[in-house]
């Protein structure tokens, strides 16, 4: 019944999974007066629990993998994922580097790929508009990320490191 209102009120969660900032700045620029994303009802909530669109930038570095998945699972359905920028879609210039994962779609299902390096606000708006179409079609069935990690364990040093990364899920067979 309320399906058609979904696309009028997309709230955004932004996560930077290791990008060069280029696209992130463009997100800010898109929120700024010239492009004014709020015209579409977009609010940058910064809170996964109240967001509909997961705007990811960056090719997924090793350390950001589990955060990516964690944030994704904290978002209520229906949700869409936008991969913003070439490096998010496919790894871009970082493709094949040893500490990146060649695009976020190896971890979570991506609905919209926005190319560009950096993706301009114009393309970002295109992406959001596309995402809204998809959002309207979505069911509330739960979408799972492709891979998960074990609980992080913490140490008291300056840097807390993840000790073990356990990969599970369908993608593993391919590797």
């Amino acid at each position, binding site marked *: 019944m*309320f399906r058609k*209102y979904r696309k009028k009120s997309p709230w955004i969660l932004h996560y930077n999974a290791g990008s060069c900032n280029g696209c992130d700045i463009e997100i800010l620029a898109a929120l700024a*007066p010239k492009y*004014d994303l*709020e015209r*579409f*009802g977009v609010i940058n909530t*910064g809170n996964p*629990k109240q967001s509909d669109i997961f705007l990811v930038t960056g090719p997924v570095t090793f350390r950001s993998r589990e955060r990516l998945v964690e944030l994704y699972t904290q978002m*209520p359905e229906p949700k869409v994922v936008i991969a913003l920028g070439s490096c998010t879609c496919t790894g871009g210039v970082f493709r094949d580097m040893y500490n990146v994962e060649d695009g976020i779609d190896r971890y979570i299902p991506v609905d919209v790929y926005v190319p560009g390096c950096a993706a301009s606000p114009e393309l970002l708006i295109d992406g959001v508009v596309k995402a809204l179409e998809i959002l309207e079609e979505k069911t509330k069935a739960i979408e799972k990320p492709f891979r998960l990690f074990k609980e992080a364990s913490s140490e008291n040093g300056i840097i807390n490191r993840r000790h073990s990364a356990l990969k599970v899920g369908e993608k593993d067979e391919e590797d």
Partner: protein
Amino acid sequence: MIEVMLILFAPLIGGLMYGFERVLRARMQNRKGPPLLQPFYDMYKLLDKQAFIINPYHTVLGIMHFLTLWTVVAFMIFGQNLLYIIFLHLLSVIFIILAGFSVNSVYSHVGANRELLSALAYEPILIIVAVGFFMMHGSFDISVIRQNSASIVPLFLLFLAFLLLIPLKLKKSPFDAAEAHQEIVGGVEIEFSGVYFEFIYIAKWLEYVFVYLLLVLFAGNNAVLGTVLFLGVFLLVNLVDNATARIKMKHVIQIVLGIALTLGLLNLAGLSYV
């Protein structure tokens, strides 16, 4: 009958105000802004979301916050005892604060703490405002206040004190530290989602209705003055919102309690001499 209708539609009126405010703010920032009905789109969308909860207490307390706030507004419309309403309002704030504390989330805690502190800043002032009305009209009953003529002139300092509260209550710059999106991501509301966030979201609209209903009390039975007050203050609050940064809770308390309390005291003291 009209009253009942008003009560039922109070959230919608609040929603419209909120929507209008968003447009206004966008225009003040030189951008186009969302449609006027944006808050309602958000509302419908939230209804359609999958429901996540952290734990039942948290959610129930959130719902109770909303219900209590609605009751507060209802009592205001019915013209009940102002002092009672202020305490009932405190109750609603307490519910949301409890909700904030009932989850194991830092931002929620920090937000709830700040909410508590801001309650500390505005409750005494609200009580003093109520006493001001009492001294003017000899009664705490809103219906009586509404029947009498405008009291903004004798209560002018209190009115100014109340103006200070509005941004605090509606979480607007410079007193929006309790929500502080860039610091604590919305504070107490952070852990609500989906339908349950809806309650918090609409409660925000009700807060608008509550505050502005209090405001027009200063106009008494003068409807024109009431409208002018409402529009003027609405604009003023938004302009200030757009001209200031968020200040820290410490300063909020110092400023609000310091200035508003002094103003209120002066006014009451003046009244008692007259």
